[in-house]
């Protein structure tokens, strides 16, 4: 195949002489592409347990994703699996996420039984597959 395509370098760098790491886009290499973004409420009742919401993504395969949760400490958005340490060391509340070919499942897990609250989960679902 002929040497065709697009390369865009970072400012101040000659695109014809630079490595891929200094390029913003190089058509020889795939890039992560956003499919869906959004947020959803997750209602957690009092007591321990998992409280989940499914987000249908329509891709037909498990996609790459990023999720963040507004938990008890509502001024911060916590990365998936991060304990909300505003209530430590007594309480253990955190957000979990997993994807299959149909849904992104967002879960608030309460291991210690705090009062009811409504969490907000923010998600970015990428077109790119979680695995090939």
């Amino acid at each position, binding site marked *: 195949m002929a040497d065709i395509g697009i390369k865009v370098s970072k400012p101040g760098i000659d695109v014809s002489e630079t490595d891929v790491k200094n390029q913003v886009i190089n*058509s020889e290499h795939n*890039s992560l592409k956003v499919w869906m973004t959004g947020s959803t409420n997750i209602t957690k009742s009092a007591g321990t347990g998992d409280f989940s919401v499914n987000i249908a993504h329509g891709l037909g395969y498990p996609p790459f994703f990023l999720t963040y949760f507004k938990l008890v400490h509502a001024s911060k958005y*916590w990365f998936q699996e991060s304990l909300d340490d505003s209530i430590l060391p007594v309480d253990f509340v955190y957000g979990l996420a997993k994807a299959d070919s149909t849904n992104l499942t967002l879960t608030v897990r309460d291991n210690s039984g705090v009062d009811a609250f409504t969490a907000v989960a923010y998600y970015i679902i990428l077109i790119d597959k979680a695995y090939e």
Partner: protein
Amino acid sequence: MSNFGIKISQSGHDVKTAAKENLVFSSQYDTLKIAKSGSGTILVAHDADIFTPGKETVEVAHGLGYEPAFFVFVNNPAWADSARLAPYAWRSIGSPTLTQPNYAVDTTKLYITFYNPDNVNDITFEYRYHIYYNELA
């Protein structure tokens, strides 16, 4: 709106017919755009109380004025190869104290909090982060 924009397909795929999974780039879809990246190490001193971990928080100002998407990698001191990084560190089963870092963001900063569950020894963690322009909304 007219059907215009830019599409770049992966090698071996016709850009006019390629599925979205086979595109390197399409202006129809947003991308993750890095606003700030960085790395560092931090020493987390031990706490002699076995029920209270040592704790340190790295705060990174991002200056965006909204809650952005981000990604953090840390090493796991339990691994023999300390150069390896992962988005999550190991959480010990049955441990009375935390071992896993926490990551959070607000409108001004990224917060990376490290815990040292060892009540005798200090631990040095390595971390790397990417903060994206993409807003969580």
